[in-house]
């Protein structure tokens, strides 16, 4: 993992001291809220419905056990005993007191974590494949380049006041688990015709009020040019982005208004002057950062396929968990274990202080001290010996972290919604809970197969509803909550935006509507089809009829 050097540590400590003074001035009445708001947002501090909310960066979703323990400490001592992992691989505390924030930030700085740039119109936390460095299908560890970009963009003077926020995601695998196509910049590692590893660069993707799938601005970019090329994209955006209208200020609007060819032309023109300048990344620098992400010293082990098969044949619950939540590791004898934060009836992404501590202990005992956060709001232990899987599973079951629903219908993405968020129009968590209560039969969930449901409480789409196989968007209609369904969205390497199914439904009708869609799918699915495959083959009509009845055809 990346470790702060002396400069990083001093700088972050100085920023904490600076914010402590700013908070003091605000509490003393020397700063108005209008003056203070941008200062607190720069440190990830929002004011939500019930209290201040602190958003903490988890760079590229990678955490050390000591950092998770610190989160537990903060949850216990400064919040209400829990935290919430988000679709940006970050952690949010919902009940923070302004007067305590400087102390909280100091605690975080002590374990090399900050809230800097987790808000504001700047380059936000750079996200990555949660299995980075461990996935068998990966070309290279994307976190090296995430860290390079993080260091480059951290408080960058030219890009600290962009027209709007800016999100970058990187995948080192052809199987996109980082949703790169719905980011302002998406980076996909792949090999060119000469067999060299580089990046396909996508630009202008995003969700929110006006969703777009990112477009390819460059088919292959040599890693040494990553910083200069990203800088040119940012510069063209900074110069051309709409500052007059917050709803048209994201890069996706500019890219789609001027067209990808014109945007590329402007970027290339700028890049001409910089590509061979100081931003050309020397191999030594990549090697230096790479050394922080060097794989741990694995033991030489054999795969435990036969031994595990024997246990699995005698323990159906363990077998089910192995099939769903355990992923192949690139090193023989090891496995990647997903911890579901989606137990029936629980709030997706929420975790208590005690469980944070327990996960940290399990990471130390079973996974070389490292934890990952996924954009689907689950956790991962990435280096578990196959010989210890059964023992670990028992412990996870006791903690309610072994629900075998990874990638299944109840592995729901859900934003905090109107229960917490000042921007929301409708509550999203009760919808997730209702659906998870309606689909508790694990055999049925496996029969339904891979299925994503993403829920947002407003059109800002923090719950990624546009790219759920089923998306659910909460809206306010004359003071009442309604929920619009979209079908056919996906955030993987074949990303697509969902199509609106029909008029919004009241909360009580949503689980039944999901049930009708699932039933209709099971009738028409062909062997080995996921819901998304079936939807793409048959279109929306069978599902529209299932939910709204035959009369929907006439509408």
């Amino acid at each position, binding site marked *: 993992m990346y470790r702060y050097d002396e400069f990083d540590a001093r700088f972050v400590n100085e920023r904490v001291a600076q914010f402590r003074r700013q908070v003091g001035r605000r509490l003393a009445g020397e700063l108005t*809220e209008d003056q203070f708001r941008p200062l607190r947002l720069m440190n990830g501090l929002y*004011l*939500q419905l*019930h209290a201040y909310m602190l958003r903490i960066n988890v760079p590229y979703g990678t955490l050390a056990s000591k950092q998770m323990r610190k989160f537990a400490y903060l949850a216990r001592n400064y919040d209400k005993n829990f935290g919430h992992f988000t679709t940006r691989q970050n952690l949010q505390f919902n009940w923070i007191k*302004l007067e305590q924030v400087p102390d909280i930030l100091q605690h975080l700085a002590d374990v090399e974590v900050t809230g800097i740039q987790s808000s504001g119109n700047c380059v936000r936390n750079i996200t990555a494949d949660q299995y980075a460095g461990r996935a068998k299908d990966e070309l290279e560890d994307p976190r090296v380049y995430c860290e390079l970009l993080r260091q480059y963009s951290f408080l960058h003077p030219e890009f600290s006041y962009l027209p709007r926020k800016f999100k970058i995601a990187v995948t080192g695998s052809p199987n996109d688990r980082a949703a790169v196509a719905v980011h302002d910049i998406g980076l996909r590692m792949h090999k060119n015709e000469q067999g060299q590893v580089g990046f396909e660069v996508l630009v202008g993707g995003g969700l929110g009020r006006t969703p777009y799938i990112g477009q390819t601005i460059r088919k292959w970019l040599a890693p040494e040019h990553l910083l200069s090329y990203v800088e040119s994209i940012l510069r063209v955006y900074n110069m051309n982005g709409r500052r007059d209208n917050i709803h048209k200020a994201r890069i996706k609007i500019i890219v789609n208004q001027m067209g990808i060819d014109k945007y590329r032309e402007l970027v290339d023109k700028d890049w001409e002057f910089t590509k061979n300048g100081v931003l050309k990344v020397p191999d030594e620098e990549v090697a230096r950062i790479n050394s922080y992400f060097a794989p741990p010293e694995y033991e030489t082990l054999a795969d435990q396929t036969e031994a595990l098969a024997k246990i699995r044949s005698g323990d159906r619950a363990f077998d089910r968990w192995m099939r769903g939540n355990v992923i192949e590791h690139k090193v023989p004898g090891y496995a990647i274990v997903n911890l579901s934060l989606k137990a029936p009836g629980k709030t997706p992404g929420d975790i208590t202080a005690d469980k944070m501590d327990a996960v940290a202990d399990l990471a130390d005992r079973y996974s070389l001290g490292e934890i990952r956060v996924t954009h689907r709001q689950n956790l991962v232990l990435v280096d578990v010996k196959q010989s210890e899987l059964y023992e670990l599973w028992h412990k996870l079951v006791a903690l309610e972290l072994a629900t075998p629903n990874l990638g299944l219908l109840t592995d729901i993405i859900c934003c905090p919604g109107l229960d917490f968020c000042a921007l929301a129009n409708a*509550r999203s968590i009760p919808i997730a809970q209702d659906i998870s209560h309606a689909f508790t039969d694990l055999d049925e969930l496996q029969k339904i197969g891979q299925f994503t449901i993403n829920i947002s409480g407003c059109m800002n789409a923090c719950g990624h509803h546009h790219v759920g196989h089923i998306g659910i968007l909460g809206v306010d209609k004359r003071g009442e*909550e309604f929920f619009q369904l979209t079908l056919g969205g996906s955030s993987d390497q074949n990303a697509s935006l969902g199509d609106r199914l029909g008029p919004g439904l009241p909360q009580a009708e949503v689980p039944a509507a999901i049930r009708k869609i699932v039933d209709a799918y099971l009738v028409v699915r062909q062997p080995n089809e996921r819901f998304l495959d079936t939807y793409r083959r048959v279109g929306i009509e069978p599902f529209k009829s299932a939910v709204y009845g035959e009369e929907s055809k006439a509408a």
Partner: protein
Amino acid sequence: MPQMIIANRLRDGAVVFLAPNEAWEPAIAAGAVIETDADATRLMDVAKRHEGTCQVIDPQLIEVEVKDGQLRPTAIREAIRAFGPTVRTDLTEVDRK
């Protein structure tokens, strides 16, 4: 429709209601119920003054009603602010009621 004044307290962000004695109270039941335009104007002036002296943030008038014997905001959003997250009623029971 009767009204109340709701805000967030500056130092901790807690939801508070302006009370008849011009203090800010976490419990909606302790808040001043406003029946006339004149009282609304007068109490909003008080609230704005308290915003200026950094006691509260963003004071607003909200509509309220008595339902099942309990005073509650008519809008879902403000009801959630008053009583806490509907999915975690345990979190605010002590603080607000």
